[in-house]
């Protein structure tokens, strides 16, 4: 610190230690991060979500096989659990499975054979694919490393068509998590624009938008989804359906966010620092982008994080009911739809694993959202 000015009264003589100075110059985002960091569970869930999104980025790399490849002779193989230690040493392996046809029911009955071990390698060669759609490669995170083509690895077993459940789960994760993200992104755009107009300008636009929000919120969601998705042409490609479902979800989901944004704008419009900016001669655009939006940005992010799991659940429910994505598209809902019958529940319980993944993902989002919301406004505490 240089010498204090002569005019400075004692009140301005703030003895700032290094730690205090760090707080003094900390921006809002730094303060948010400091508070969020204290929330251990939210921090753990953030790591979990980062893992999920890695899968979203490169599902082929995490998959062990082609998710579409069917093999009628390999149906309903139970999960081959991955083991970390082999004979006291670090080494991945999975037990082999052996099939025997039941003479009475003529059904293949699979037994996990703990005695025969299939070594599992990392970064093994397998199905060729394009990493991120750009780089040609055939490396996968996990795969059988015995070199014997007959050794197959089904980490989560297979379904009724002999498709590898683990690989399908990876691709389903991509679809479901992406739908959640994109639908919320659309909702944010709609919500911020419409809520912003409503809150900043008030008057007639506000009246119209608020009545529209009330109308949309008073509609029962499930029948509306049913009607809208049923209206989609049957012959659309999976990508088109995917896009349409995303759009439907966000068209019905922006209302809460719009309300939130409107409320923020209404409150901020009356703030003295906004008037000060106005008096300083700032343009409207500058007031909105520099003074108003940054003030509630952290809230928007927290709210959106809480909105993503809702979207994921919505998509999963729709697909589960057979109205959302349909095979050959793979999503968590589609995977669960396969597990819709008593045969699955009784004989192939591993097909219910996607349900568990949905629960984990939704919980993680909610916990992160809670943590963010608590950390979002460091000035209120």
């Amino acid at each position, binding site marked *: 610190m240089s010498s204090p000015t002569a*005019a400075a009264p004692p009140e301005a003589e703030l003895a700032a230690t290094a730690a205090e100075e760090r707080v003094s110059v900390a921006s809002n985002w730094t303060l948010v991060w400091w508070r969020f960091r204290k929330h251990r569970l939210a921090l753990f869930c953030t790591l979990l979500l980062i893992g999920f999104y890695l899968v979203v980025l490169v599902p082929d790399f995490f998959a062990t096989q082609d998710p579409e490849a069917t093999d009628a002779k390999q149906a309903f193989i139970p999960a081959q659990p991955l083991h970390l230690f082999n004979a006291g040493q670090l080494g991945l392996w999975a037990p082999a499975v052996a099939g025997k046809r039941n003479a009475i029911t003529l059904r293949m009955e699979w037994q996990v054979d703990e005695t025969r071990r299939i070594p599992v390698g990392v970064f093994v060669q397998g199905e060729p694919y394009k990493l991120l759609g750009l780089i040609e490669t055939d490396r996968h995170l996990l795969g059988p490393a015995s070199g014997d083509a007959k050794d197959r690895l089904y980490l989560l077993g297979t379904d009724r068509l002999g498709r590898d459940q683990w690989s399908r789960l990876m691709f389903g994760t991509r679809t479901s998590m992406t739908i959640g993200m994109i639908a919320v992104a659309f909702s944010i755009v709609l919500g911020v624009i419409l809520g912003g107009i409503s809150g900043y300008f008030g008057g007639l636009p506000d009246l119209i938008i608020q009545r529209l929000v009330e109308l949309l919120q008073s509609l029962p969601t499930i029948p509306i989804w049913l009607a809208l998705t049923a209206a989609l042409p049957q012959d659309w490609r999976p990508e088109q359906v995917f896009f349409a479902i995303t759009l439907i979800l966000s068209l019905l989901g922006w209302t809460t966010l719009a309300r939130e944004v409107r409320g923020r704008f209404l409150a901020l419009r009356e703030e003295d*620092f906004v*008037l*000060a900016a106005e008096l300083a001669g*700032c343009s409207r655009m500058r007031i909105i982008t520099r003074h108003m939006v940054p003030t509630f940005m952290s809230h928007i992010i927290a709210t959106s994080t809480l909105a993503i799991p809702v979207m994921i659940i919505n998509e999963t429910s729709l697909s589960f009911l057979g109205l959302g994505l349909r095979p050959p598209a793979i999503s968590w809902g589609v995977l669960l739809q396969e597990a819709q019958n008593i045969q699955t529940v009784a004989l192939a319980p591993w097909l219910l694993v996607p349900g568990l993944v949905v629960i984990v993902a939704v919980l993680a989002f909610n916990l992160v959202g809670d943590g963010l919301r608590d950390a979002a406004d460091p000035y209120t505490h």
Partner: protein
Amino acid sequence: MSAPVLLEVKHLRKYFPIRRGLLQRVAGNVRAVDDVSFTIAAGETLGLVGESGCGKTTVSRCILRAYTPTSGELNFHTKEGRTVDLARLSRAELRPLRPQMQMIFQDPYGSLNPRMTLFDIVGEPLLVNGLRDRQARTDQVAELLRLVGLRPEYMQRFPHAFSGGQRQRIGIARALALNPRLVVADEPVSALDVSVQAQILNLLLELQKRLSLTYLFVAHNLGVVKHICDRVAVMYVGQLVELGETQALFQAPRHPYTAALLAAVPVPDPAVRSGDVELKGDVPSPANPPSGCYFHPRCPFAAEVCRTEAPVNREVAPGRFVSCHRADELQLPGVVQ
């Protein structure tokens, strides 16, 4: 009153419509400011006092055109020597004039954007008015901070690192950034600790001397007003009831409401009896004011004429304006100097 007039407020009115029902029909008006006229001379400090809700803040915000007046004139003499009616200017026409009138806010917490550093807060008026060079802006901000008694080293800090008094200094630095002629101070010390109030008031007086500023000083604390103002205007329910030189007004108020306000000032002497004029009842609603003189339901001297006829604002002595039917006959107690 030899100094040239800086701002002339003529018959200023600001009504806020009360809207009801689904179609938002106007059901009535809150007459926040109802026919207020006064002038501010260059270099002086005009105090604007009154109880909460009497319209003082509305007057100040109309002058700065944060609100658009319902009617009336705001004749401002610009640096360039022109006289413009601020009340009629559009948003775009106002922008070049903004630097000449600035505001100091009451709440030192709400008036600084918590997401911006001191440099951004104080430097923003400079930036939006054309000073794009960052280094030049840094120098100016440092100069302004020194001017208000803050260290330039604090420039990268956020407002949350400062106390109320320091924040008010930041607000003053921001108001002075554009070298204004008129500064509207809306209760600049009422949110501060008593110990800090004097520091800020003295800073304002010192800055006025150095930069030849003109203040419109809105306050409800008469002690503060006496300390800082050359002239005082007293408002009651959106109207001006008395206007005069501070000394004269405090010694011999001509309006019963002014006398009542003065009597309400606590005197730190147990031997002194509080004045005879005591305020009873509540301030009437500006949406539904009483008939005649707005003050008559609470006035101890109200006569029949006060109930039926609204008094006109007249000059009872040079530079002394009063709105009271009985101003000439009443002998009202003031504050003994």
